């Protein structure tokens, strides 16, 4: 294992909400101004801590969806979980000008740096696309031409996060490809995939194992289990498949 990570104390910082972007009916991106943000790598996350007037606190982790290249700005993309304690506050209550406590960046394994040269395969389920978006944004910001494929599973077109931006990235002609699959409902005339990700779809979309892609998979546990397991069965090196999972209890 690489011994590359910088060991530094992670202190709580007060960020200011610069903007709230409605991505889908259930998903908001929080654009934060973070004084003295130490910088992050694409794929890392932060811990967010909420404090009530009587001192009660709740903490959760959220992926950073912005590229490391946006200086002093950090974007977190949050999906509202109906039974959640923290996410409904972040998506429904928080607005521009509010302050938010966070610390990070956290994690150093599920990361991609634009200095890489191997093709990348990104497979996201639902809001699992968020850390993958940080990688695509980082790639674009650095004008990287590393071949990149995103396979993104969403329930329907209205649930696709970052859709206009994904369309632009795919149209840029710099080696980035975006494949959507819509599992629940398709618009009239939809010619793309219309089912859950399976081994057959992965065989069609993924780089062949001989190209030794670096693969990042993020989504709910059954999604990640299926995708990672299928890729291994297709002949991909397990050591080059990095996974990040979140469960329905994330809150």
């Amino acid at each position, binding site marked *: *294992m*690489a*011994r*590359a*990570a*910088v*060991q*530094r*104390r*992670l202190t709580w910082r*007060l960020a200011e909400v610069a903007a709230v972007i409605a991505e889908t009916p259930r998903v908001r991106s929080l654009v934060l101004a973070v004084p003295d943000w130490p910088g992050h790598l694409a794929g890392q996350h932060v*811990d967010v*801590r*909420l*404090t*009530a*007037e009587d*001192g*009660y*606190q*709740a*903490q*959760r*982790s959220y992926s950073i969806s912005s590229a490391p290249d946006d200086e002093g700005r950090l974007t977190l993309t949050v999906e509202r979980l109906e039974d959640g*304690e923290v996410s409904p*506050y972040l998506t429904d*209550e928080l607005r521009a000008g*509010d*302050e*938010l*406590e966070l610390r990070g960046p*956290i*994690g*150093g*394994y*599920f990361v991609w740096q634009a200095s890489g040269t191997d093709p990348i395969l990104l497979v996201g389920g639902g809001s699992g696309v968020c850390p993958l978006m940080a990688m695509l944004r980082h790639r674009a910001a650095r004008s990287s031409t590393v071949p990149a494929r995103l396979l993104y599973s969403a329930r329907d077109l209205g649930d696709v996060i970052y859709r206009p931006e994904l369309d632009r990235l795919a149209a840029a002609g710099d080696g980035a490809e975006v494949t959507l699959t819509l599992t629940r409902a398709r618009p009239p005339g939809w010619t793309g995939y219309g089912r859950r990700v399976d081994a057959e779809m992965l065989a069609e979309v993924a780089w062949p194992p001989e190209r030794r892609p670096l693969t990042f998979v993020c989504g709910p*546990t059954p999604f990640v*289990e299926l995708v*990672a*397991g299928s*890729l*291994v069965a297709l002949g991909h090196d*397990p*050591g080059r*498949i*990095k*996974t990040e*999972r*979140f*469960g*329905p*209890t*994330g*809150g």
Partner: protein
Amino acid sequence: MTFVSRGFRGRRRDRDAGGRLPPGQYVTRGFPVLSAGPTPHTPPAEWTFSITGEVDEPRRWTWDEFHALPMETVTRDIHCVTKWSKFDTVWKGVSVDVLLDGIDTAAEYVMAFSDGGYTTNLPLEDVTGGKAWVAFDFDDQPLEPQHGGPARLLVPHLYFWKSAKWVRGLRLMAEDAPGFWETYGYHMYGDPWREQRYSGD
């Protein structure tokens, strides 16, 4: 407490946890999964458990030999660094005391190592004295691969990343060294009651 999150009240359903919930944690009834890569599937016939490193005579058990060792069933609360805690989880396994019984070593630390390349470091005294097990049953069922089966380390008094999934052995070490997540900035010890999530906590 100086900072207050405007408009946040919190659900507080975990308030009456009776002192069982470490700081910054919430209670879950599910069993979330976290791991860094694909789930390994090692068949029992190929599974062994080893004690290696700073020891005169390394030890090794096959799956069958391991299951002939004395077993315990323990009920413990577990705490994941990603903030969830789960109460009263029931495990069956072999105490690490049994595995290290009679071993002569000057080691003060162990590195647990697993299929898939995962490692995590612990002080020897945190895996001895009835504090750690190699568990292969969860809730009276064989441990599922996604939760670490066929066998995982169980060290419930530390954050759960120390309870290495797919564990295949313990390497005894004279000095501490970071394992997988510890290399990426997670805490070397990981006591949930002192909220030792990350390096420097």
